[in-house]
């Protein structure tokens, strides 16, 4: 009963604010529902429609690739940078602030700034790359060109991943906090035993921060799956050429109000829930042997 008492604020909030909307969304997924008119029961038609919908599959595939890249690279980079900025470098506070600040920039402004950076001719990225590639071309007689970051379907996902990684400051701050919890005595013991620097990271740091890594991987997965606003602003509502930047949540949103197919959008929401829950379950199961809870389970 004590446990339930502690958790009760959330349970009350859940019942008041979320339970009904979630149940209704479940019901809507079996209906034709335009938001403006009352829902009409159509059974499993929405789910059957998803299976046959090539745009749904395209958006899901894009999202899958994006999620894998962002979560994998984001985890490695955030841990790496957090560890680096946790050592005794000079000017630590400033570097930390600089890495963290991008997550605060309003999305509209962030998307705009990156559109300028990615501009094929005037953008800083290509203006830096062009002379380099020019020199390489002259030397090796190749014909390398700077990428068309937001126009070439092959590069769009990469561009979006890079921009998303720019906001990894959130995760870095969480890792920084976690690194403070690693008892110094463990490092000292390891150092006395002659464990190498990498060995100390592998056998002390990583196990000690593993619960937080788990947290960041799961919430990173959820956040990356719901990527939406930035590609919408940078590539327009259709997600750029060949729908290369068209994601699951973009399609879900387009269906919900713009296409007036809230029923269809709701069925997408439930598919999403099942997929992410399954992935989370998989991660939790796989992590059982890896994640170390000093406080026990």
């Amino acid at each position, binding site marked *: 009963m004590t446990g339930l008492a502690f*958790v009760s604020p*959330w349970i009350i909030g859940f019942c008041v604010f979320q339970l009904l909307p979630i149940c209704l969304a479940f019901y809507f997924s079996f209906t034709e529902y335009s938001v403006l008119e009352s829902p009409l029961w159509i059974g499993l038609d929405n789910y059957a429609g998803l299976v046959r919908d090539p745009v749904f599959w395209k958006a899901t595939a894009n999202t899958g690739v994006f999620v894998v890249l962002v979560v994998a690279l984001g985890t490695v980079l955030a841990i790496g940078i957090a560890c680096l900025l946790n050592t005794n470098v000079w000017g630590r506070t400033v570097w930390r602030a600089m890495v963290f600040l991008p997550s*605060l920039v309003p*999305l509209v402004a962030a998307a705009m700034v990156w559109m300028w950076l990615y501009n094929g001719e005037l953008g800083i990225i290509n203006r830096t790359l062009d002379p380099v590639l020019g020199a390489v071309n002259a030397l090796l007689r190749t014909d390398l060109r700077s990428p068309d970051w937001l126009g070439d379907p092959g590069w769009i996902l990469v561009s979006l991943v890079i921009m998303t990684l720019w906001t990894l400051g959130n995760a870095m701050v969480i890792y920084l906090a976690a690194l403070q919890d690693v008892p110094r005595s463990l490092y000292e013991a390891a150092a006395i035993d002659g464990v190498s620097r990498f060995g100390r990271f592998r056998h002390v740091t990583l196990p000690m921060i593993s619960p937080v890594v788990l947290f960041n991987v799961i919430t990173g997965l959820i956040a990356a799956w719901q990527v939406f606003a930035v590609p919408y602003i940078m590539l327009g509502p259709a997600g750029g050429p060949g729908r290369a930047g068209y994601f699951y949540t973009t399609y879900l949103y387009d269906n919900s109000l713009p296409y007036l197919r809230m029923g269809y959008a709701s069925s997408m929401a439930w598919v999403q829930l099942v997929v992410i829950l399954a992935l989370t379950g998989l991660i939790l199961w796989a992590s059982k042997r890896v994640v170390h809870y000093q406080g026990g389970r």
Partner: protein
Amino acid sequence: MARTSGIGSRAARTALAALIAALFALPLLSMVLTSLKPTEQTLADSAALLPEPLSATPRYALDNYIGEVDDDGIVIARGVWTDPIVDFPLFFRNSLIVAILSVTGAVISSAIVAYGFARVRWKGRGPVFGLLLATMMIPFPVLMGPMYIIFKQLGWIGTLRPLWVPAWFGVAFSIFLLRQFYMTIPRELDEAAAIDGCSHLGILVRIILPLSKPALAVVALLQFIAVWNDFLGPLIFLQHREQFTLALGLALYQSQAGNVPWNLLMAASTLVVLPVAVVFVLTQRTFVEGIATQGLKG
């Protein structure tokens, strides 16, 4: 911070840190520099990085940030702080109110709820925790219609309440984060306290919370950012410009025919980032030296 080696590698690490930080800061620099230019130079070709002529920068900056309004209230130069259409001080104030209320609520309630998930064994804990995780995975667009109706029944549409009251019942993301942190705290500590006759509430307040300061600071910070950047919620639930938050208000710079004053948008964004940057620099010691310096766990 004891993980040191030779001074040479400290310099190397500093160089690497500076390089990484510079890469992250480049887009920010572009944002700030744009905010110092007059409209016709935003996006201009050639020496696009800096305003031209450089000597006029203070005047441009003054125009973009402060603006100029004559005695009759006629706008001579649109500036972020005095622009009548995008009322930055008002939106800033609204965002601050929502942020303060929701961060306070989220930290207090999540700290309590997370204890129930991390430190107390009870029947149904697993499934309820699963439910908590699941609520993060349902996209807002399919929930906002029914949520609107609930808030309408409560009489909250057109007030700031839908944006902060729910945070007082715990935020799934924060609960999950705190649970992970609580679980890294050795159990022997609360067992000892329990033997001394401490209740669960006592353990939470006297042992867990003091040890979780960095985590609580992170929860506060991330909740702040989430509220600060939320766009869809305010869009759906607010009804008057007087209540607009910054994220929603900044969209007012965008006109239908595309006339966006980029310099103003960037100036406003700089002003949005600046206070948080100051708070971050001042408080980041909390994440860094919270426990380690107190030596409680060493």
